[in-house]
């Protein structure tokens, strides 16, 4: 069978950073073709080129035997390429139906778009592909993230694409909808469409992909039939030679000194009666089912929102009513927030500005900033954290997810706070960077930092934390250590009430 889509030696640079060094891909019509690779491997750049959102510097792409070089998303859509981006392309103030048919709306004789026609067409489209129930006339800004993801898929399908690109399309979906989407991808491919499927979840890829292409560091490193390859090979190809262990050895470094002491700590109705001691040199994990008070715990500790009960830092009682009060230097607290794109970073600002924003006083003398001293601090952080960037002046928004997270870590470390609150710090980050972050956490603990660490991935808590505090319904259900600190143990503590009920 001939290749329907063939990309050869596609290159894209941003300034001095090579996003794509040499991307190759051959895919057939009617197959599900998975693209795998760590974050920053170039998958996103490659599909943005396919979708016309970014133009390649060099290389050739052919689609159905013809040269394909879309100059904008409109041209890509006209050629039959529709993409569901990780960064959603929906318009919040338009309705579901208006979004689905945006730019190719069926028109009345007066050249207008009739809401009734649009809603009916959407309902029909949704029924054809057995979509979850979403009303076509709702405004998209009123939908949940999962619903938006589903609408985005409908939008791509409404164009009857020859190539359908799904970029991490299941990342926001609950299990039932994930199943649905996997089935949908298979049936769309069975009807002759090429489905390019990008996911970090190897299980999904195994379930639906006919073939797999692996990217690493901006280059295509392997391509195979799914059936002819095992998971070990795929992972080895994704990581390359950097096969060091994900989890660093855990050496107990906790002392008896209490860094953060909580008594009767609570926050509104979501969290109450927490008694907990975080020790110097300790990584204390926090676990719980979604919505059982973990977020409130971290926010209240950092002075966001109401808090009750008593907090002592390094033995001193403290009343923390604002982040400013929390960030009090060596005796204070620093937080890595959950949503780095909207809370942690100013994407348009440079790495340097992001790193030093909260610590301007550290290099200020007589009311003037000292650029030499600032530069030294920034370079030290970039070096320690191995932030991969062109220069400190590069905008934070142009970094990969993992590198953005490192900038946030750097920002937090520069505050000199020795109690660190890490809220899901590895979410959406590639395996390599995850390993680096865990190593860093253990190193900091060994240096005497005290770390409170929440993760939605239980394995991380089990392997990185010394002890794990499990929350259930806003209360402390258990503190697990030693052999009890296992995925099984955590889940049981987090769910036991449900099981009994």
């Amino acid at each position, binding site marked *: 069978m001939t290749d329907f889509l063939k990309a050869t030696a596609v290159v894209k640079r941003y300034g001095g950073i090579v996003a794509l060094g040499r991307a190759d891909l051959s895919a057939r019509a009617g197959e599900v073709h998975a693209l795998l690779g760590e974050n920053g491997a170039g998958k996103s750049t490659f599909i943005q080129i396919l979708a016309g959102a970014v133009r390649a510097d060099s290389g050739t792409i052919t689609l159905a035997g013809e040269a394909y070089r879309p100059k904008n998303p409109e041209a890509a859509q006209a050629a039959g390429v529709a993409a569901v981006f990780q960064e959603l392309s929906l318009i919040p103030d338009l309705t579901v139906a208006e979004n689905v048919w945006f730019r190719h709306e069926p028109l009345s004789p007066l050249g207008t778009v009739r809401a009734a026609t649009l809603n009916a067409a959407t309902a029909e489209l949704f029924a054809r592909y057995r979509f979850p129930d979403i009303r076509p006339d709702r405004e998209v800004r009123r939908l*949940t993230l999962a619903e938006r993801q589903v609408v985005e898929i409908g939008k791509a399908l409404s164009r009857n694409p020859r190539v359908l690109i799904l970029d991490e399309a299941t990342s926001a979906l609950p299990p039932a909808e994930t199943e649905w989407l996997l089935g949908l991808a298979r049936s769309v491919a069975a009807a002759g469409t090429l489905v390019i499927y990008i996911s970090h979840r190897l299980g999904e890829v195994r379930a639906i992909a006919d073939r797999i292409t692996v990217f690493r560091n901006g280059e295509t490193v392997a391509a195979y039939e799914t059936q002819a390859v095992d998971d070990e090979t795929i992972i080895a190809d994704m990581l390359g030679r950097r096969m060091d262990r994900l989890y660093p050895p855990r050496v107990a470094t906790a002392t008896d000194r209490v860094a953060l002491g909580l008594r009767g700590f609570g926050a509104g109705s979501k969290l109450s009666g927490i008694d907990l001691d975080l020790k110097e040199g300790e990584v204390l994990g926090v676990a719980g089912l979604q919505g059982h008070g973990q977020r409130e715990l971290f926010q209240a500790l950092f002075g966001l929102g109401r808090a009750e009960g008593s907090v002592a830092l390094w033995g001193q009682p403290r009343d923390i009513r604002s982040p400013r009060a929390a960030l009090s230097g060596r005796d204070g607290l620093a937080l890595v927030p959950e949503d780095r794109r909207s809370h942690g970073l100013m994407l348009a600002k440079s790495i340097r500005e992001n790193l030093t924003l909260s610590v301007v006083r550290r290099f200020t003398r007589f009311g003037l900033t000292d650029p030499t001293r600032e530069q030294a601090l920034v370079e030290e952080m970039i070096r320690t954290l191995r932030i991969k960037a062109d220069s400190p002046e590069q905008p934070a928004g142009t970094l990969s997810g993992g590198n953005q997270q490192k900038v946030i870590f750097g920002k937090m470390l520069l505050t000199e706070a020795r109690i660190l609150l890490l809220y899901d710090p590895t979410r959406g980050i590639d395996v390599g960077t995850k390993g680096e972050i865990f190593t860093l956490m253990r190193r900091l603990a060994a240096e005497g930092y005290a770390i409170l660490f929440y993760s939605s991935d239980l394995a991380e808590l089990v392997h990185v934390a010394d002890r794990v505090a499990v929350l259930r319904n806003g209360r402390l259900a258990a503190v697990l250590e030693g052999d009890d600190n296992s995925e099984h143990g955590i889940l049981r503590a987090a769910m036991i009430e449900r099981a009994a009920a």
Partner: protein
Amino acid sequence: MTMLAADSRERRAMPGLSPSLKATLTDRAPILIPVAMLILLVAIYASLREGVFTLDELNLDTAAALTLVLAATGQTIVLLRGGIDLSIGGTISLGTVLAATQFRDDPAHVALWTVLILVIGALVGVVNGVLITALRLQPFLVTLATWSILSGTALIILPIDGGGLPSFWMAFGSRNWLGLSSAVWLLAVLVLFWLWFRRTRLGIAIRATGSNERSAFLSGVSPLGINVATYALSSLFAALAALYLTTQTGAGSPTIGKDYILPSVAAAVIGGISLFGGRGGLIGTIIGAYILTIIGNLVFVLSISSYWQPIVSGVILLIAVLASSIAERSARRSLT
């Protein structure tokens, strides 16, 4: 293993929330608030003066409001796009001086120059749109610059207020059909235009781009195309405002346009248009323009100093902005 275990299932379910009355009210707050304010102001006005609820009053108020309504129509389109157009002040001034200096007492000649003024107006917008897109400049600064250039041009053509307009031209401004003035009829045409325009692909794309520029681009909206269309429409409406204004004043003025720049924004914002783009409609803007006009009437009827007019307008503007932001916040809270 991730923590999205069983209990997160029900909260992630996808129900179609049946809209309660409260949700509907907060949803419609941006338009209900100006409607309520207009009713209140008209009620106060009617208590101070006889004959407020007559066709005469409607004809007069509409004639007084229409220039602002037309200018604010263009501004509304730009605000929906998420931009702002200060140059309409220059376009209006230039339009009036061109009409005052070029119109002769000959309908064919007037028709020709009417078309030319509209074309010049649209070209101003094309230039704005190209500058904003191609040079990636702030709309505020680009249109501030073009406003200045156009104002200077108007002053060169006609240094002081004056010039003359054909009598049939001014007669049009004061004519009535079926008891309704030309202004009321023009307003009706404008509303029909809007009801059509907001449902066209261009209308939707303008609103969409204001709502989320990046998403609109990814969906295939051309940044240059949308900016040129948006600013050209704005300038075109400014030129229409200028032409209508000359039927009322009977003269050209190289400085009159600046009186419409900020009131056009105020009318739109009072009428519920978000300065962040994407939300609101022309009906709100028209109500906003009437509110500003009635405030002028009230100040006149109360025979207090006309300096009170901008003060009251400012307070009304603050109330409108505050009320819709409270509604917006409570809507967001009811969602989570």
